[in-house]
């Protein structure tokens, strides 16, 4: 077979351009299909990446460590009294880019005009900035300066609800371990923005030591939030954290902590695959038709080649090579076009015009298309595999032609 591959490849290539109009139309269809497949996958991946990374950024981090009962009953009774040296050492391993020990308790915020239920986060700002906040998130004022800072940082939406403003005082309340209410007055020192307005309404940041004192829990914290360098791949360090924590603490990745986000990611991967399959099913009808026509028009020729001693399997391979040429050409151009058309969008697509709708789905105001080599490789392999499968029927028919009948075909 090796000896005839060269002649098969030559024949396949020249046959492809015998009816160049038909070939170009099919090629255009494949290019368009591949472009749509890659472009849509990049948009969808960008969208889900945005939802997931925003979701992770403002709440769980990539993993969290709690008292074993905290997730069932998130009260201050289930706080972590101290962090073991093994755990602190495990938090320094490569792959972990930051962590923050927080007091995270449900509470209430009240201004002179309104009051709201919130999630109060007592944080050490130096640690928190490695996990959630960046300087750009503060839109007014400043972030906390130390864990003893007596100021409070609230979201833009919360500020609107409370009908108050930067510099004014508010009161924070939360339950103590003795089932009393601990409260304290705070001055609003900063206003932050988040990718999703629900986060701006929910989370209020205060100094960790101040919150610990307010609710009387000493140096205990309720949550450790950990950030790694790739939210899709936690396994290199998560297991080591679990080992270091032993049975005394509960170490969980974000997928376990937030089923919605985990589902979103799984759905994105599944939708991408389904989209690829759907587009290809449409394309495959055209491909089968093209290959069937190509065989139908060359019945005599195929009979001749058989008469001259060409093996049926070589004829099958020749037709498959024709299909392969079409697919590879279409994939190369389609992938290239998709990559090129995504370049002007690399700075992000402004979704502010549909901000409220986007917010409902957890989307930020900017969508960053994300094209990963794995998406291109996956669709390329899939399209070639399915394309060859679609070409197999006409190729098989060609290989089974009877040379005498084929030679007498008019």
């Amino acid at each position: 077979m090796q000896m005839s591959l060269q002649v098969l490849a030559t024949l396949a290539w020249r046959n492809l351009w015998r009816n160049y109009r038909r070939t170009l139309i099919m090629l255009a269809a494949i290019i368009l299909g591949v472009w749509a497949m890659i472009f849509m996958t990049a948009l969808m991946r960008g969208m889900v990446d945005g939802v997931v990374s925003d979701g992770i950024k403002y709440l769980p981090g990539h993993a969290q460590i709690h008292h074993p009962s905290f997730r069932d009953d998130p009260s201050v009774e289930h706080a972590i009294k101290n962090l073991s040296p093994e755990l602190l050492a495990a938090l320094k391993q490569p792959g972990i880019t930051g962590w923050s020990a927080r007091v995270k308790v449900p509470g209430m915020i009240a201004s002179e005009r309104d009051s709201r239920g919130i999630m109060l986060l007592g944080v050490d700002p130096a640690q928190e900035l490695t996990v959630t906040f960046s300087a750009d998130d503060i839109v007014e004022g400043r972030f906390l300066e130390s864990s003893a800072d007596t100021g409070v940082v609230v979201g833009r939406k919360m500020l609107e609800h409370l009908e108050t403003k930067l510099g004014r005082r508010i009161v924070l309340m939360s339950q103590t371990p003795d089932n009393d209410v601990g409260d304290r007055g705070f001055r609003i020192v900063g206003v932050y923005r988040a990718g999703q307005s629900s986060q701006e309404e929910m989370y209020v940041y205060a100094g960790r030591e101040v919150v610990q004192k307010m609710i009387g829990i000493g140096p205990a914290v309720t949550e450790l939030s950990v950030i790694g360098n790739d939210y899709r791949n936690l396994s290199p360090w998560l297991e080591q954290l679990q080992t270091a924590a032993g049975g005394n603490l509960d170490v969980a990745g974000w997928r376990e902590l937030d089923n919605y986000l985990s589902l979103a990611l799984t759905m994105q991967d599944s939708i991408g695959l389904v989209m690829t399959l759907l587009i290809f099913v449409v394309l495959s009808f055209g491909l089968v038709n093209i290959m069937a026509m190509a065989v139908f028009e060359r019945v005599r020729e195929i009979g001749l080649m058989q008469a001259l001693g060409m093996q049926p399997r070589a004829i099958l391979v020749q037709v498959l090579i024709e299909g392969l040429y079409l697919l590879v050409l279409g994939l190369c151009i389609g992938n290239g076009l998709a990559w090129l058309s995504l370049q002007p969008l690399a700075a992000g697509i402004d979704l502010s015009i549909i901000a409220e709708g986007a917010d409902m789905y957890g989307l930020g105001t900017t969508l960053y298309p994300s094209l990963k080599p794995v998406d291109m490789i996956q669709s390329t392999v899939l399209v070639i595999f399915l394309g060859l499968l679609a070409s197999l029927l006409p190729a098989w028919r060609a290989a089974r032609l009877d040379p005498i009948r084929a030679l007498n075909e008019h």
Partner: protein
Amino acid sequence: MASVSCKDLRKTFSQGETTVIGLDGVSLDIEKGSFMCLSGPSGSGKTTLLNAIGGLDTPDSGEISIGGERIDQLAKSDLADMRLHNIGFVFQAYNLIPVLTARENVEFVMQLQGQSVEQRRELSTSILEEVGLQGMEDRLPTQLSGGQQQRVAVARAIVSEPQLVLADEPTANLDSKTSTQLMDLFWQLNERRGITFVIATHDARVMSYCRRIIRMVDGQIIADENQAGGPGNAD
């Protein structure tokens, strides 16, 4: 030993509800180096016999041997292999591969046989020169006349030096001058290379070239005649 041996070949075809007899007990030995023709009216069975000898069609019963090897029971792929190495075909309608040049058409069989590029180039150059097509090696079939296309087909049939060349009405689409040139070429190749030629024809001019004429009617051999043959015989 005969180059080709056929024993009691029988073949029928179904055409709607009727059965047509293609071969009716044909037995025939063809010696190596023969230059012979199968003649007879349309439907006499000459093309059916040619196809059976060439392994393109399988008889319903009987035996066919080429070079002492039975071919009537070979599988499809083995038959293809046998044709590739033993038989050259020349068809009435030239049957060149339209996307290949004259040289590539000639080299096609050698490529299937796995011959090297140098071997192919050397043989195709000399054979195209021998059939009078030097300078036309890179032309596509559409750029050649009917006679030139048939010469390419002949070059393709003989380039790998098969035991046997089977030609089915090779002059049917050619004018008389080109037909004569083609038969002269066949004759020279038979004389120079000793290739066995079996030609199915009902053209008297072609028959006059042959040393042996098998006359067929209704799938049976009715006469087996020998003559001097050759170009001189055609005048």
